[in-house]
Every structure is written in C-alpha cells, then in structure tokens.
C-alpha cells in the first residue's frame, strides 16, 4: 500500500516540477513550485525522516517561495517571450537527458546495500548528532546567515541610490 502512495506522490511531484518550468506566467510556476515542495515533503515522510519534511515545509514552502511570490507580485513581469528560441530547447533537452543518464549510472554503481538496516531516526538522535559531530558546520552556517543579512542590506541600500524607484 505504501508503494502505491509513494509512486502517486512521486508522479505528482514530477508533474508540478515540470509545470514550474513550462508555465508562461511566473505566478503559476511559483504556485506549482509550492505544490511540488509539498509532494517532496510527502516523500520525505515516506522515507521516514519527518524532521526534514517539517523543516522543508517550514523553510522552503513557508519562506523561500513566499519571497519568490513577493518578487513576482512586486515586479509584475510581462510573460511575453517566456522561452528562449527552439535551438536552446533542443540543446538543453539533450544535455539534461545525458546528465540524467550519467547520474543514474553513477548512482546505481554505488548502490550500497542497506548497511545499518533502515531504522527510523528519532528526533533526539538527529538533534544530538547535529550538536556533537556537526557542531562547527552549524556555527559556521549561522555566521553565513549573518553575512547574508549584511549582503541583503548592502543590495537594498544600493537600490536606494538609483534614482527611479
């Protein structure tokens, strides 16, 4: 039964993902991006990591795509020429196909057998690991976020100078 749900959510995610890149107006592609992130959160739950599913919904769908929708709404883009000319389409389709094949081969080569046996990771295990083994990346990442805030302010200040707001 869970395999059926798994495949259904997978197809749903792929459909929304393709409609992100195919929709002419960016608002509809932002909307389908939200739906595809929902599908991904469902997949993470099925892969027994609910913490990541909740973080994905909270940060990705609840903050990043909100920013996308803000910018799309404030910039009211004209969705005239949405796609590049057809040569780009052919080249990119071929490139994507080649890369996917390569990835699939690389991944299947390295299919490690289920070493530790798939056991559900409790929330406390994940949290303790974050603060014991991965403590320094965690602290460096918070420095990264402060740097991002400074960068955003620098960009916003620069936009204040340019005349036509």
């Amino acid at each position: 039964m869970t395999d059926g749900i798994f495949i259904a959510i997978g197809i749903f995610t792929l459909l929304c993902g393709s409609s992100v890149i195919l929709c002419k107006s960016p608002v509809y592609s932002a909307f389908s991006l939200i739906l595809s992130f929902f599908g991904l959160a469902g997949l993470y739950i099925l892969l027994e990591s609910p913490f990541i599913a909740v973080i994905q919904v909270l940060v990705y769908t609840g903050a990043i795509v909100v920013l996308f929708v803000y910018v799309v709404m404030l910039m009211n883009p004209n969705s005239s020429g949405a796609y590049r000319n057809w040569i780009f389409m052919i080249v990119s389709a071929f490139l994507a196909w080649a890369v996917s094949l390569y990835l699939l081969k690389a991944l299947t080569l390295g299919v490690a057998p289920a070493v530790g046996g798939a056991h559900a990771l409790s929330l406390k295990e994940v949290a303790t690991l974050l603060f014991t083994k991965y403590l320094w990346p965690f602290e460096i990442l918070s420095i990264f976020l402060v740097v991002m805030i400074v960068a955003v302010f620098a960009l916003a200040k620069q936009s204040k100078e340019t005349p036509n707001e």
Partner: protein
Amino acid sequence: MSNFSSVYWTQFIAIALIGLGMVGFLIRRNAIVVLMSIELMLNGVNLLLIEAAHRSGSADGTMLVVFIITIAAGEVAVGLGILLNLYRIKHSSDTELYKELQG
C-alpha cells in the same frame, strides 16, 4: 520500505527533478523562473541525500540536507536582491537584456 523497487523509484524522481531544473534553467527567459529551477535542482539533491540516509540508517544525510536548506535560503535572499536591482535598471526581468558583460 527499503525493498528493491522503491530505491530505484526515489532515485528516478530525484534525477528527474534535477533534469527538470536544468532544462528550466536553460530554456526560460524570465530570471525568477531561472532561480526557481535552481531550487528544483537543489531539492532533487536533497531527495537523493534523504534516500541514502534512509537506506544506510545513518543521520549524516539528514544533516547535509539541513545545511543545504540553509544555504539555499541565503542564496535565494541574495539572488533575488541582485535580480531586483537589475530590474530597477532594466525595467524588465528578461534575461536576454542582461548582456553588458558580453564585451
């Protein structure tokens, strides 16, 4: 859940997402949709990591995904900031117009 078919199915979905992101990145003219396709690719990678973490039972994959999500948040914040300044100068978000660096 870690029987044979679901391992390949997750990897197929993840790689398809990365492929979709790449196609979107190359063929779209609107800069915002280009950024969205990059997010799609990042999520494909996240899915692969979670699937590996699930299969091998260790939480390292989960940690990497948490860090990727943080960096993606920072990247979008600055990326859209740059995009807005470009929009302010060019009054359009069409990537065809951003050509000054071509020399």
